[in-house]
């Protein structure tokens, strides 16, 4: 999948181009308001862009086709699961067959809270569950907006392992302020600054571009 030439209504982003393949985990960094979430929403098709071009296996796709064709799964920054529903009732919404459901039910840590209502989960448990569910979709690509946010160290390690496993069959885009966790799992990264894309190959690049002060 490739994204080329993109600009938002308020000119938050301009001429951002990148490519993600199955097996890739791409990291996107940027300070608050730099346009990370905007970029993901525009690619997902839930936020209109002035101009966006998405290529999937050489086919040019309109952003509005992403949702109906189920090409990209998306973990938004804020929780998106109904708070009054129990975890065990949410899982079948995402997984239609029993084998897939069992993969989520028996994923490390889930049995601890599978009888709990979504609204009663801790922020970390909720984030972990949401990432598991988005990852369980058949979509060839997934985009995760701050998946490490509020996660306790144990869940962070589980999540990293999960994303590495998912990347065997999917292309993954991750954006998060927990840059060390992101750098642990990504093969390529870039920083969004002043609407432009800056390639990041090592933590020093994040310092040089003013995203962090020291590593």
């Amino acid at each position: 999948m490739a994204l080329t030439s993109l600009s938002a209504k308020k000119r938050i982003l301009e001429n951002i181009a990148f490519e993600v393949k199955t097996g890739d985990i791409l990291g996107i960094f940027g300070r608050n308001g730099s346009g990370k979430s905007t970029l993901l929403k525009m690619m997902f098709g839930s936020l209109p862009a002035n101009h966006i071009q998405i290529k999937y296996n050489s086919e040019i796709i309109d952003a509005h086709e992403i949702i109906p064709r189920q090409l990209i799964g998306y973990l938004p920054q804020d929780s998106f699961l109904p708070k009054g529903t129990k975890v065990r009732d949410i899982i079948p919404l995402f997984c239609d067959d029993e084998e897939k459901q069992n993969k989520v039910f028996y994923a490390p840590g889930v049995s601890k809270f599978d009888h709990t209502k979504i609204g009663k989960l801790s922020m970390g448990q909720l984030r972990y569950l949401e990432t598991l569910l988005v990852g369980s979709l058949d979509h060839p690509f997934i985009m995760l907006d701050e998946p490490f946010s509020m996660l306790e160290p144990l869940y962070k390690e589980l999540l990293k392992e999960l994303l590495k496993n998912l990347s065997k069959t999917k292309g993954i885009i991750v954006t998060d302020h927990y840059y060390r966790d992101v750098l642990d799992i990504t093969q390529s990264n870039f920083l969004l600054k002043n609407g432009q894309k800056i390639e990041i190959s090592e933590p020093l690049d994040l310092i040089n571009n003013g995203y962090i002060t020291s590593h």
Partner: protein
Amino acid sequence: MNVRAIWSYYIDINIVNLVFSIFIMYLLDNRYWGIFMFCTLGIFVGRYAFRYFKNNEYNLYFNLGFSKLKLLKIVWILNLMVAIPLLVIALAI
């Protein structure tokens, strides 16, 4: 088609829709208006309430392949399927 997901959205929209339609029915003292509202304006009232209180839950449906327009069409068709027999019964009584 993910029936569980559609059912979940359908219930969420129609709880508000039903309250609104019954209110209109009593306000105008006309059951036909109640049925009419249930499959027209009431859906938009329910949709507005969903957007106001649960906007982020749209991402759940997006992930499952449902656009907002597709969800709206499904709710409208299902409500028509409920409203038409109700209308026939109301006319017969």
